[in-house]
């Protein structure tokens, strides 16, 4: 029976060898132990002996050829035996080789995947020279509303350092900063082409940040929104009660509808910890406390500061803290740590004041969900059997990441929010 002669594998790193010299030629008789050919790797040269005796029936590679290891290089057998089946150049054996080299192929496929390109945004909205400024000074300038373009740095090589910003802040601001910080130093809009009926304005940094965050949110998660409404009669009753007490001076805090909804949501989150989470791709971060993000519309753009440990607060405490946080966000002196999407475990965005009836809020990734609170509209409802009346209903829009939560869970959570609102 004809037996193929394999190119041996000399060590794991060797994928192919070069044939040096054939000592036997086709048709010659060989005995076991005869040296058939020599071959080399990048490290050394070797000689291959015949493992069996017979006639050298075929040679598939010439001297100097590079041959993948474990490939048939020759056939030894008895005169007249067919050798085509062993020829690695023929189709049938090629398939075998491809099968045997499966791992190699897979590797090359992986290599072909194009590398990830990370593009850096270049800040080109700063006219003139590059400003040398320390990271600390930069964030201080943003907070204190100091225009760094006009600052002269006193640090090494003229770097603007924290003390320069601090000094400038003292000089520049005789009156407390009420106006949003960025407004005063906003660079003049650049008109790129004259005579046209538009002008191209560069966008602010915070706009860029929001743009990136929102875009990434929609790109990197599977968002969908459920809408549901809750009977708002109890809510309005509570609101009236607090309003009266506030007017009467019994409490120091004017508790708003938003505060009450937030309070209800926190209670619901306590029952549905899977919603009070961050979705991190391969894991979920389950928060033991509720850190409530509150979307605040400011003149500088949308900000979502987090209220830490919101579940520890009473309704009046919650009201006070939310009010404080929203005010800080509007004046721009909120702790930047609280603005990071990682700081909140769940976010509420309330557009009810603006009369919005239904909307699809965008999740603040990595958070798992966001609740949109809509306006209160009177809707017909069966009050008792067969009797319908108009009942004020508040709209609730829950956007959730379907990667993290399933529809059933999300719906049950939203229903819980409804129940909490109806039973405040």
């Amino acid at each position, binding site marked *: 029976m004809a037996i193929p002669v394999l190119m041996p594998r000399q060590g*794991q790193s060797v994928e192919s060898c070069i044939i040096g010299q054939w000592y036997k030629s086709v048709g010659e008789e060989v005995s076991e132990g005869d040296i058939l050919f020599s071959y080399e790797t990048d490290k050394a040269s070797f000689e291959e002996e015949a493992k069996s005796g017979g006639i050298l029936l075929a040679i598939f590679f010439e001297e100097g050829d590079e041959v993948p290891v474990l490939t048939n290089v020759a056939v030894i057998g008895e005169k007249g035996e067919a050798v085509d089946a062993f020829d690695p150049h023929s189709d049938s054996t090629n398939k075998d080789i491809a099968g045997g080299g499966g791992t190699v192929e897979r590797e090359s496929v992986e290599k072909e995947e194009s590398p990830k390109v990370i593009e850096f945004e270049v800040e080109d909205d700063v006219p003139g020279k590059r400003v040398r400024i320390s990271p600390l000074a930069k964030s201080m300038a943003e907070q204190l509303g100091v225009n760094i373009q006009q600052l002269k740095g006193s640090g*090494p090589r003229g770097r603007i350092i924290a003390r320069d910003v601090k000094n400038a802040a003292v000089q520049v601001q005789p009156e407390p900063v009420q106006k949003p910080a960025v407004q005063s130093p906003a660079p003049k809009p650049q008109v790129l082409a004259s005579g046209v009926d538009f002008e191209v304005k560069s966008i602010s940094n915070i706009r860029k940040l929001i743009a990136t965050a929102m875009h990434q949110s929609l790109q990197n998660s599977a968002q969908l929104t459920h809408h549901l409404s809750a009977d708002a009669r109890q809510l309005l009753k509570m609101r009236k009660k607090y309003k009266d007490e506030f007017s009467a001076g019994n409490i120091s805090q004017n508790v708003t509808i938003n505060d009450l909804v937030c309070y209800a949501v926190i209670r619901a989150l306590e029952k549905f910890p899977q919603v009070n989470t961050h979705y991190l791709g391969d894991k979920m971060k389950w928060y033991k406390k509720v850190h409530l993000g509150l979307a605040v519309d400011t003149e500088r753009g949308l900000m979502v500061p987090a209220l830490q440990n919101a579940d520890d607060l009473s309704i009046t405490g919650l009201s006070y803290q939310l009010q404080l946080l929203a005010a800080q966000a509007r004046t721009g002196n909120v702790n930047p740590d609280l603005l990071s999407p990682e700081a909140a475990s769940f976010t509420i965005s309330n557009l009810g004041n603006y009369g919005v009836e239904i909307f699809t809020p965008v999740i603040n990734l990595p958070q798992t969900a966001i609740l949109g609170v809509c306006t209160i509209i009177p809707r017909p409802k069966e009050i008792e059997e067969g009797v319908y009346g108009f009942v004020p209903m508040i709209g609730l829009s829950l956007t959730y990441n379907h990667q993290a939560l399933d529809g059933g869970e999300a719906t049950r959570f939203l229903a819980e929010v409804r129940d909490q609102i109806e039973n405040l």
Partner: protein
Amino acid sequence: MPKVQFINPDDVRKPSQLEFNPIPINQYNKTIEEEKKNFSREEFLRIYNDMVVIREFETMLNLIKTRGEYNEIPYNHPGPAHLSIGQEAAAVGMAFTLGVEDFIFGSHRSHGEILAKGLSAISKLNDEMLESIMKKHFNGITLAPVVAGHTGTTQELAVKFLLYGTLAEIFARETGFNRGLGGSMHAFFTPFGVYPNNAIVGGSGDISVGAALYKKVNRKEGIVVANIGDASMACGPVWEGLAFATMDQFTELWEGDMKGGLPLIINIMNNQYGMGGQTCGETMGYEVAARIGAGLNKDQMHAERVDGYNPLAVIDAYRRKKKILQEKRGPVLLDVLTYRYSGHSPSDASSYRLKEEVEAWENQDSIVWFGNELVKAGIAQKEELEAIRSNTADLITTTLKLAIDDEVSPHMDMRKYPNLIGDMMFSNQSVDRMDDREPEVNHPMEENPRVKQLAGKERFMFDENGKPYSKIKTYALRDGIFEAIIDRFYKDPTLIAYGEENRDWGGAFAVYRGLTEALPYNRLFNSPIAEGAIVGTAIGYAMCGGRVIPEIMYCDFLGRSGDEVFNQLPKWQAMSGNVLKMPVVIRVSVGSKYGAQHSQDWTALAAHIPGLKVVFPATPYDAKGLMNAALQGTDPVVFFESQRIYDIGEMFHQGGVPEGYYEIPLGEPDIKREGSDVTILTIGATLYRALDAARILQDKYNFSAEVIDARSLVPFNYDLVVESVKKTGRIVISGDASARGSFMRDLASNITELAFDYLDAPPVVVGSRNWITPAHELEDYFFPQPEWIVDAIHERIVPIPGYSPENDFTEEEQLDRNAKGV
């Protein structure tokens, strides 16, 4: 330098000459017929069987490596396989007489030894013990694949277990003996007395000595065999191990039942090649490796050469040499002559030897020869031997199938459990004592002269008026280290300490003063000047279950123990799959004043190697607390001490250094001075220069510096430092190491990443210059000084009004120095 040994010039100056005893070479000449009275038929057959098992196991690996299949089972093994085909008689002969309690250590070429010793142990263990061993190992994970469908005896199951555990380990399977983390060159299984094999040539040459030391000091039964190659006899650590093993003090100074030599056989598996170099005739000059014994001690290590192609000759030698060890006359050196047909590795073309040479040895193949002899002597039928061979082939085939089946023998799931290996780097245990017996001491601790002396010392540096006490009255850093160590000596009976002049002298820096009085020789002794062996033996000692404090007298000598500190000590916990613990605390003293080779801070070298914990305390309170924590743990700790401050008192911890036991957790930096304008983070003794800098800044420039002492390098919790930077916005990192590639640079880079938004300037590193350390008189130009720190703050962080710096810390200078490489 014991006083009991008087070096009399009249004696040692007398003329005379040394006599050597003849070293036997291949003296064994018994026939099988003659040996019939010494071996049962079963034993003869077991010898044959074990050799066949090893041959088939390695033949299988050879085929897998070179042809990608065995018995038509295809497999791709990308890892190493250094085979010992041809050496089977030497391995089986070595292991045959050994008991389960005897330990073997090996090399990169030790598959045969693992199997030989494993099979030998299996034959000596009863079913109950075998079952318990197999079930206990990783809670039966290694056993499960072989037990499924097994019908034979427990011993047969154990053989399958041995073959499977070894092969799965070679193939990096989680079910292997070491969870696949050791692999071919490191596989081992301690319950059968198989201790780590070593991919560094000669790596076992000193580790095994430590194992023998453990057996002796802790009165454990059994001997230790170091299987190392003929070429490893050129390695420094092997010579150091031999020097350590043959110290006179074992017989001259150790007392009572401790008197006597180590229970150790250095077994040279002499296959006559080191890679492609021929040890006899080319790369060595000993001609016969047994000759080395004559150079080491009076007994010539009882050295002899044995014919390793005859298993009975090797067994005969072991029977005789074990007796010598029982009589406490060890250690022994055996030169077991053998030959490998396979190359160094499958990629070795054997271009350095003649085909005829390999054939000549194959013609005398020990398995074929021994089989024929058994048949000739009427001990076995040909058919019986054939049955052994074919059964073995079946066994190996089944084992291979199991070991490559991804279902039953998976690799570690690193995707699902990405920290699996990370979790094994340290054992992180808290263990008072490694054994329960009463610690051997010379007197109650309170009677110790040093302990009594310390009772009178001031444990805080200043009196109530803030005036420092005199040096002689002050409890110093060296006292803190001493208290932690003596406390552990009285708690943990396995604890031993050694290094250069640890006994009598009490260490070059008087840390151990008083320990000599408290401890017998076998717990505290002077080692040869052999840093490799000092650390290497400690590794072997710890591997076997002891706790040990080796000392490196100067940090600069750490290089002398490079392989031990960088390749052995940090690796064995994880490479064993967490089977081994490594409670070794290496004390390393960092010098100054003594120039270029005695003044270097090499903390970065230790911190760079994964698997070592690294601490560098700078106050007595921290030194005692960290030493306590290091000694309570089960991980290797490199404990740096600075010679500049051995005599410093405690100036931070209110109430002074507590008398009782307390631990300071490794990895937590500590604020030594609070401040608000800049943070100065220091490593080691630089702390005190940073405090001087802080005083200058405060007094002259009203600039408030917070000073943090890193205390530990590995692990390191950045929280405290990041919080400080959030407060100050600025940081300088200082230490006595040459700045380039130092741990300071690592700290700076991490802080930049972790606190970037809070930084008012890049972190600045103020380390030593990238030069030789000059003489003491010029040291202030080399090591960081208080003024350097102030200069660096002024030039790189925040210019100080009215300040003019003396040193150049500008970017130009930094560029220039780097461009020049200095």
